[in-house]
């Protein structure tokens, strides 16, 4: 009788702890995501949510186009993404590429002369481009490149213009100052940077480091 009683107590205690573990499982992310992560089910879910909440059809359409133009392996990676940081970067890139697509289509048959591009760059920088080296460089650019660059500088948003202006200034300064130097890759260094989780960029357009 005593042995039966003891066994029953052991079974009861075990059952309580089993219930405790089952209760804990969702919070241990094994059965279902936490409330704040309900949407962590891949990029498709994010797009659906964006479309539903903000009604941004243009975003959803561009995302779908980007996915259609992506190879199957990358598509598979994107639809299984759980990292919110990467998904946010993708969302930003989708918006920018949507704008670029629209610009490409709009500028497709627009011919921009070298003179027009030189004038707009000079106007933007507030300085004369000086010698003919850069003018010669503009002359050898493809029509599409010239058209896109011109449109960014003339019709781009404030941030687009600012970004392009900064880049052109840096480019011209490095050309004039002969700052160019071969890029030396240190694999172990870069691997260390990745592990630190920082952004690798050509800060100052001269070297890479974590910003």
């Amino acid at each position: 009788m005593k042995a039966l009683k003891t066994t029953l107590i052991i079974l009861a205690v075990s059952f309580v702890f089993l219930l405790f573990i089952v209760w804990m499982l969702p919070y241990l992310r094994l059965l279902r995501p936490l409330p704040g992560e309900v949407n962590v089910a891949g990029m498709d879910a994010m797009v659906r949510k964006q479309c539903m909440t903000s009604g941004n059809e243009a975003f959803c359409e561009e995302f779908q186009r980007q996915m259609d133009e992506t190879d199957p392996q990358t598509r598979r990676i994107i639809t299984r993404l759980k990292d919110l940081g990467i998904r946010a970067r993708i969302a930003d890139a989708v918006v920018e590429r949507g704008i670029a697509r629209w610009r490409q289509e709009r500028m497709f048959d627009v011919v921009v002369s070298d003179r027009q591009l030189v004038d707009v760059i000079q106007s933007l920088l507030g300085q004369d481009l000086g010698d003919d080296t850069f003018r010669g460089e503009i002359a050898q650019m493809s029509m599409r490149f010239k058209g896109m660059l011109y449109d960014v500088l003339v019709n781009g948003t404030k941030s687009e213009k600012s970004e392009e202006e900064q880049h052109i200034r840096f480019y011209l300064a490095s050309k004039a100052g002969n700052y160019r130097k071969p890029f030396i890759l240190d694999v172990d260094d870069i691997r260390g940077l990745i592990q630190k989780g920082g952004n690798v960029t050509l800060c100052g357009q001269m070297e890479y480091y974590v910003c």
Partner: protein
Amino acid sequence: MLVVLAGPVCGELTGSYSVVVDGNGTAVVTLVVTGLGTVNVPLPLDVKTPAVRDALYVKVKNGVDVSVDAGGQSTIVYRTSLLTFTNGGSTLFRMELPKFDSANVVLYVPEYAEVLETDPNAAISHVGLSKSIVWTVKPSQYPSVEAEYAVQKGVERPVDDSMLYAVLAVVAALFVTVSASYLILRKSWGG
């Protein structure tokens, strides 16, 4: 004229890629473009703005167009998590190449990785703390490069926190159950 309008000029251009992949599949890509002309560089969808040095660039629908001047050499650097796909115990790497005349791609995988397959065929070397896979291809023939490698289990693998907590919870629960059972049994034996 239509050809010029439809696509970028890409003559006499060569590209040299260095791709460093860490154990989690995140990659830093460095592309050095040499030559003269404009080239379209497709970028993974998680790259908003790459770092571009010694060239002008504009953003396009699939990445950036980069204009390289005569005798120039331009460097493009970006970080992405979309080049590798983990499937079971192996990692698949795939990268689309711009339309260069020729391209050299060096993929630096972790030192402890075992290379299972490459497409097209690649040379494999071991330098410093990295094992590298090297392709020299004409993108007109091979528009992309692929590799499959396996990382040895238990070596620099990130620990899954949720699984760790689950194991700890189970162990703790078992410990409490066994302790309680022992105390109860000892009491009943003693009585």
